């Protein structure tokens, strides 16, 4: 995802001199061509996230389009007041780009995990939150962020994520994507975990259960229509995120369900009010934290069995 982002941003910056790549000393090697070709538009501000975001807001007030990038955890937590006051309150056209979504920095431990970032940021007025699920989607989301006038939080994984799309599609902010149709249960995922959710679909399929899979690449504004349609057309709703179940995708969907006036069986799968446990690869992490396809499948089956 990171490469997709950097390639997309590089192309945007080459064409539009208003675009700036600000970083907080993260990902030095991958910026080689920026250093070479985009003098002045590329700026490593050192390990000072708050300063970077405040500065980005000031630049945006002069018509620049800064993309301020570093590990998401350092942006959403350390610099929250700068995101709120400098960027959102003043509605500045700043793109806040956080890498290492969820537990992607698996072995680096919870200080580097973004497992509450959506909860921290979702309540901020004016902020649009994008959480793409694959390299192709990151490229589209980066362009959409550029075209959107206003603050964006773009939540990226790291590198090596598998492509979940087999063909090109239309990316639109605020419009979820139905990756697979199904009648029995709807699973809504976001970001890194989508590849795992697609495996769940196959597992359920083998048990004769047809699962609709929705990629909610925009957390805010949330696609209410796609949720309401799922409530009407399938028997149960499950959200999956590598984030705490409080404040993120699950909470956002729950708000829509609660206000819909329609009952549905509903389960949120994610971290349950805890920081991620264990170390290892991302795959190890989702296993240890009960977010692997097998565990999600079990939760889906429980959800459906409760109904009978």
């Amino acid at each position, binding site marked *: 995802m990171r490469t997709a982002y950097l390639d997309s941003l590089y192309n945007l910056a080459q064409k539009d001199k208003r675009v700036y790549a600000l970083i907080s000393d993260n990902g030095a090697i991958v910026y080689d061509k920026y250093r070479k070709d985009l003098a*002045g*538009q590329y*700026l490593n*501000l*050192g390990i*000072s996230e*708050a*300063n*970077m*975001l*405040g*500065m*980005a*807001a*000031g*630049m*945006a*007030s*002069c*018509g*620049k389009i*800064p993309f301020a990038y570093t590990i998401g955890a350092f942006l959403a937590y350390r610099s929250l*007041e*700068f995101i709120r*006051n*400098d960027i959102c*309150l*003043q509605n500045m056209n700043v793109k806040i780009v956080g890498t290492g979504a969820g537990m992607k920095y698996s072995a680096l431990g919870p200080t580097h995990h973004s497992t509450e970032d959506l909860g921290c940021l979702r309540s901020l007025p004016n902020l649009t939150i994008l959480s793409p699920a694959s390299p192709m989607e990151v490229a589209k989301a980066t362009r959409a962020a550029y075209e959107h006038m206003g603050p964006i939080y773009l939540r990226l994984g790291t590198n090596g994520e598998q492509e979940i799309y087999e063909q090109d599609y239309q990316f639109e902010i605020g419009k979820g994507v139905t990756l697979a149709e199904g009648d029995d249960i709807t699973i809504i995922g976001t970001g890194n975990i989508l590849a795992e959710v697609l495996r769940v679909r196959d597992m359920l399929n083998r048990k004769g259960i047809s699962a609709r899979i929705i990629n909610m690449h925009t957390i805010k504004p949330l696609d209410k229509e796609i949720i309401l349609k799922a409530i009407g057309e399938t028997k149960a709703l499950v959200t999956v995120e590598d984030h705490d179940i409080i404040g993120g995708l699950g909470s956002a969907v729950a708000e829509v369900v609660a206000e819909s006036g329609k009952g549905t069986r509903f389960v949120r799968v994610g971290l349950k009010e805890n920081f991620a446990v264990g170390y290892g690869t991302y795959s190890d992490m989702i296993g240890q934290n009960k977010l692997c396809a097998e565990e999600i499948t079990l939760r889906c089956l429980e959800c459906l069995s409760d109904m009978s």
Partner: protein
Amino acid sequence: MDNEKVSRAAKDIRKWIYIIAHHAGGGHMGAAFSVTDIIATLYFGDVLKYDAHSPKWEERDQFILSKGHACYSLYAALAMAGYFPEEELKHVGMPGSRLGGHPKIYEVPGVEASTGALGHGLSFAIGIAYAHKMDKKDNHIYVILGDGECQEGSVWEGALSAPTLELDNLTVIVDHNKLQAMDDLESIVRMRPFADKWKAFGWNVVEINGHNCAEIREALLTREEKKPTLIVANTIKGKGVSFMENVPIWHYRMPNEQELPVLMRELGLSEEDLR
């Protein structure tokens, strides 16, 4: 610079600060009085390039009051400069007014940043200064920080950043009144040697009497190539009202019946002015 004009403006700003507080029922008067002479010199001493009838004029210099709680002083200067009617100053903090207890961008003509939470104005100003450098424009950016505000870590991130970026189009004035909300600054956090810290960070540092308009102007116009300028303005919190000067409680307090006549006499206010 017309010294007489600046002194008169400073006197009027001080009057307005109390008039605003009187109608609003409170406010951070001590801080507003402290920065009054600096703000008067910026706006009325031929320092800032601005056009009150075209607040977003592209060639303007920009001023950011990072210690947003001193905004009564800024509001008074902006109204006196013609950004909005002086009458609005009597409605600060009231329903329907665009002027609040801390300044907001967009809503208030002439306000360049929404400030209030401390430690934000410097980095925001650095962003503006950097953008102007990239555009090869010579607009100058001025920021007022409080000395207590300099206890915020983010100020020192900016303090490192501006010299690194060689922003000689940036001037920061620290309102060094040596008091903060609760007590004497130094007794809460040891900040001495204050000017030396900034020098060591690579700033062009000038130290002045922050109530002497000629000294203020000279410092505001000081430039050093490839270095941002930091003015340590030695000021008196509550300057202009004897019983408020250097007394921490006046960070946020209103005068009582005995104090009010003294304040009015010293500021040159009449009963009529408070209507």
